[in-house]
């Protein structure tokens, strides 16, 4: 894991939270693995909160540096799911 503080956190948050009552969700699927190159707008993973399924997208070009919640893991809305090393 890099110690670079410029890493961008992917937080389980967004406009979609207005559609759900629950505060916990589950990571359904990672589309890419750690170390993969990603482009801004790429779908990184699919999460599900109640029945709402959401794609978390890369906010920037870079490398998916670290996954914090694996498939099947539960999270609380706002949790960091992963970090991207920009580049």
């Amino acid at each position, binding site marked *: 894991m890099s110690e670079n503080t410029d890493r961008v956190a992917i937080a389980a948050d967004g406009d979609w939270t207005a559609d759900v009552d629950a505060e916990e*969700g*589950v990571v*359904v*699927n*990672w*589309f*890419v*693995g750690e170390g*993969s*190159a*990603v*482009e801004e707008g790429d779908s990184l993973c*699919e*999460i*599900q909160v109640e*029945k709402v*399924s959401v794609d978390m997208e890369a906010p920037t*070009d870079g490398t998916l540096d670290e996954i914090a919640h694996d498939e*099947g893991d539960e999270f609380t809305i706002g949790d960091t799911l992963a970090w991207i090393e920009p580049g």
Partner: protein
Amino acid sequence: MAQEERDRRVVERELTMSRAMVEAIAHEMREDEEVFYMGEDVADYGGIFDSTEGLLDEFGYDRVMDVPISETAYLGAAVGAAQAGMRPIAELMFVDFFGVAMDQIYNNMAKNTYMSGGSVNVPMVLTAAVGGTYNDAGQHSQTLYGTFAHLPGMKVVVPSTAYDAKGLMHNAIRDDDPVVYLFHKRLMGIGWMPAPGGPKTPVPKTDYTIPFGSADVKREGSDVTVVTLGLHVHRALEAAESLADDGVDAEVIDLRTLVPLDTETVVDSVRKTGNLVVVDEDYRSFGVTGEIVASVADEALENLDAVERVALPDVPIPYARSMENEVIPDVQDIEDAIQATR
């Protein structure tokens, strides 16, 4: 980003089966404006097993249509639309509900090409969720592969992986004949019903087709041929891996489509191994297991040393977890059957 790195990124992308299905449907809807999707809870809800997740956002209510609980009406509408030149995909939600629309499915969808002397075809896809293993009792847990495969005029598709699901869906939508596309709930990869590891695979972003009638050897082996489909491909693979430690080398064949049926791949395998195990989540009597055994007996009786069938006993699927687990074949049942051929 270097091209090589981009290629790696595409190859690395893994999808759940529901995502792979939806990607194929969305592609075909973009290519052909006659393709549309209708069913219960398919628009706003995205399909109760995520079979249409995200389609409404891109295509709107005119092409992703929620319908009332009215299977006869909307499946009849789909048959009519198909005859008029459109390419409907109609979702039955649970396959168990087919009974209320049996006339539309069994008499019209399957037969109208024949009944009209070939003056119309019915290029529609009927999708439905199949399978148990999550305690939803006798009217929400059946597979019924055999029911549709038994009916002349219908093609029957049963994918077991994301890669197969996408390629078979492209083929199903482009086919000019009626196709029944049955997806197992346990393979879809939805949050509240986790899939086993196997169905999630790398899936190319571009479109591709998998021809109907091409069974896939999911694991090569020399001692016994295990023929199966759907969820039980993954249970058979697990059983095969487990037995490999005991020196039993099992070949696992995924049929992928029941109609047309690729008997050649199965027979070739049995000629090599001499032993046959057929595993099915449908009922045992008059079903897939009997059909496969009969097909092999027709063509390679002299090569057949031992035969085992693993399927549901002829009882409605129980609600209680312990009883459901008892009737649906598990990894141990498959291992036992393989051992019994030794």
